[in-house]
C-alpha cells in the first residue's frame, strides 16, 4: 500500500464516507438546531440583563455581575457536567440536549450582557440628554436612541463571541447529545477509522466557515458605518 492510499484509507475511506454520511448529516442538523436556539436565547437573555442592569438597582447589578463573572470564569465543560449530573439529584431531569442548550445560552448571555453594557456605556451621554429633553421616557430613549447605537458598536465582538460559544456545541458529545462530534466519535469507534472524525471536522467547517466569513463582512460593514 503506497502512502497516498494509506492516507486515503485512514482519513477519507470512501465506503466509510458513504456509510456514515447520513449519521454526520443528522449530527449537523442537531448542531444547527442547538446553535440557533443558543444564539436566540443567549443574545435575548443578554440584552434583557443589560436592560435590567441599566436601571441601576444595586442589588440586581451585583447579582448580574456575579452571574456574568462566574459564567465567564468557568470552563463550559465543567458547567455542562455539573448541570447534567447534578440536577437529577435535586429531582430535575433534563434531556442532554436541553442541558447543552441551557448552559451554552447562559454562557452566551453572560458574555453578551458584558458586551452590550460596554456598548451602552460607549454611547455619549449627550444622546441620552437630547432624547430625554424632547420628552422621551427612559425606556423610549434606551430602545430608540441608545440601544441601536450600542448594538451597532457591539456587532464585531458579539459575532466573535457567538461563534466561539456555538462551537462549544461539540462539548455535548460527553453527555451524549447526538450532534456532529458525537456521531463522528461513535462512527469512529465502530469502524476503527478516523474517516468519520474527518467528516465531522469538514461538517464543522461547512457550518462555521460561512458564519466566520459573514462575521468578518458584518464587522467591516459596521466599522465603516460608524466612521
Amino acid at each position, binding site marked *: 500500500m503506497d502512502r497516498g492510499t494509506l492516507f486515503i484509507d485512514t482519513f477519507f475511506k470512501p465506503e466509510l464516507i458513504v456509510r456514515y454520511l447520513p449519521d454526520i448529516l443528522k449530527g449537523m442538523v442537531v448542531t444547527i438546531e442547538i446553535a440557533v436556539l443558543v444564539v436566540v436565547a443567549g443574545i435575548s437573555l443578554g440584552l434583557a440583563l443589560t436592560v435590567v442592569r441599566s436601571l441601576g438597582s444595586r442589588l440586581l447589578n451585583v447579582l448580574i455581575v456575579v452571574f456574568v463573572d462566574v459564567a465567564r470564569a468557568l470552563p463550559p465543560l465543567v458547567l455542562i457536567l455539573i448541570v447534567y449530573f447534578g440536577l437529577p439529584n435535586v429531582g430535575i431531569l433534563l434531556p442532554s440536549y436541553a442541558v447543552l442548550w441551557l448552559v451554552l445560552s447562559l454562557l452566551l448571555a453572560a458574555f453578551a450582557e458584558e458586551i452590550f453594557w460596554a456598548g451602552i456605556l460607549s454611547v455619549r451621554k*449627550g444622546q441620552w*440628554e*437630547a432624547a430625554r*429633553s*424632547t*420628552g*422621551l*421616557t427612559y425606556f423610549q430613549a434606551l430602545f430608540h*436612541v441608545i440601544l441601536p447605537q450600542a448594538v451597532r458598536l457591539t456587532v464585531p465582538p458579539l459575532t466573535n463571541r457567538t461563534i466561539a460559544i456555538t462551537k462549544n456545541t461539540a462539548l455535548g458529545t460527553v453527555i451524549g447529545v447526538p450532534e456532529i462530534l458525537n456521531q463522528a466519535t461513535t462512527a469512529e469507534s465502530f469502524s476503527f477509522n478516523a474517516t468519520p472524525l474527518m467528516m465531522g471536522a469538514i461538517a464543522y467547517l461547512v457550518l462555521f466557515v460561512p458564519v466566520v466569513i459573514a462575521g468578518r463582512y458584518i464587522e467591516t460593514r459596521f466599522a465603516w458605518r460608524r*466612521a
Partner: protein
Amino acid sequence: MMSARRNLILEVRGLRKSFGGTEVLKGIDFAVQPQELVFIIGPSGAGKSTFLRCLNRLEEPTEGSIFVDGIDLLHPKTDINATRRRIGMVFQAFNLYPHMTALGNVTLALRKVIGLANARAEAIGIAALDRVGLKDKARAYPNELSGGQQQRVAIARAIALEPKIMLFDEPTSALDPELVGSVLAVMRDLRASGMTMVVVSHEMRFAREAAHRVVFMEDGLVCDEGPPTKIFGPDANPRARKFLAGIAR
C-alpha cells in the same frame, strides 16, 4: 409685578444646585416674559450651563422652584416627559442621533411622545426642517451634514414639538467660525416669530443685537442683568465690565 407674573413663561426662585459638596448654583431668581430672548453670559464655571440644564431637569436642582408656563417643574406629580416636550433644548454638541436621518431625528419625539402617525409626523418634520432651511437634507444622515447644518437640524428637532420656550446651551461653540452665521440666522428667525428663548453663549455681538435682556452670572449667582445697552455699557456691574473687557481683548 403681580400682573406681569401671571403670564411669565419661566419663573425660577431660589434655585440651588450642589454636586457632592460643591455648590454650583447659589440661589438664583430668574424670570422670562413671553417672546423674550434672554442671554446668559459669564465666565466659565459660573454655572450657566448647569442653570440651563436645571430648567428642564437634565440636572436635578437641590433646592428652589421652577415654573414653566405655570407648571411646577419640580412637583413630584408633574409629568416631566410631557413638560419637557414644551421646553426645547439645543446643545453645544448638537447630539443628533447618528443612526437616524435628519427627518428621523426630528420626527422621533413627534411619533413616540405625542403619538402622531408617521405621515403626520413627517409632514411636521419636513416643515420644521424647512424653517431651518434644510428641507432638502431631510434624508441625510448627521455624518453627511456640516456642523452648522447639524445644529440647525437639532433646532428643528426642538421646534417641531412646538415648545413654549427654547434653551440654547452654547449652540455655536462647537462650530467653525464660518458656520456660526447660519445658526444665528435661524435663531434670529425664531426670535422674529416670537419664540421665547434663553441662550447661554459667548456670541456677544449677537447678544448686543438680538437679546432683549442680558444676564451676567458669576460664581453661581446672577450678578447683574438688564438690556444689552446696560450690560455692555459703562453702567454695568464692575465684574461684568471686567469679564467683557477680558473677552474683547
